[in-house]
């Protein structure tokens, strides 16, 4: 497809389990962003990649969160030992670069931690 895709679209997990969320950016987009939107909250920046490197990891809420990007394309956001407060919609976006360009968002992964 031509857009950003994310999988799974929905994930229900038990507290304490690990989850992996995947993002496939638009082909050729070098920048990739992860955000989350919790109920009643705005979009919270988590991390962004320029190529395979993540210059800024300060947005990750805790050390249970990690992200990687391989081959300058697909990215995986991993949440270890999930907690109920991790329940949110996790959105991925990509852009041609971090300069004056637009971000294209995926549909998000809805995570529910029971």
């Amino acid at each position, binding site marked *: 497809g031509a857009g950003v895709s994310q999988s799974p679209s929905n994930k229900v997990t038990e507290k304490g389990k690990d989850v992996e969320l995947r993002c496939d950016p638009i082909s050729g987009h070098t920048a990739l962003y992860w955000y989350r939107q919790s109920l009643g909250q705005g979009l919270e920046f988590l991390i962004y990649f320029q190529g395979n490197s993540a210059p800024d990891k300060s*947005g990750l809420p805790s050390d249970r969160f990690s992200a990687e990007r391989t081959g300058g394309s697909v990215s995986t956001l991993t949440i270890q030992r999930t907690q109920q407060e991790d329940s949110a919609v996790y959105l991925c976006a990509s852009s041609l670069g971090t300069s004056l360009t*637009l971000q*294209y968002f995926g549909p998000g992964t809805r995570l529910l931690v029971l």
Partner: protein
Amino acid sequence: DQQVKQNSPSLSVQEGRISILNCDYTNSMFDYFLWYKKYPAEGPTFLISISSIKDKNEDGRFTVFLNKSAKHLSLHIVPSQPGDSAVYFCAARSRGGQFYFGTGTSLTVIP
């Protein structure tokens, strides 16, 4: 701490009238501002943007105004249409390339 704020969580407007969505920011070093529109169960889609060197940008029914001295951004939609009903997010970009989003304003356009 929220660097981009949308203080009105919701707004209702009659069809054909003007919708004005407001956004305030705290960081004077933001260099680019955007508005996104989001329908339920979809990711946000880009609507309109403005560089910090400008004070107005217009695209059809949508106009964004930037008041740098007040650190205030607004989106005007005129005339408003029922299909404009959505959540609107204001976003600002830092020089480091990060984007900061407001909490959104839910617009309802009443037919």
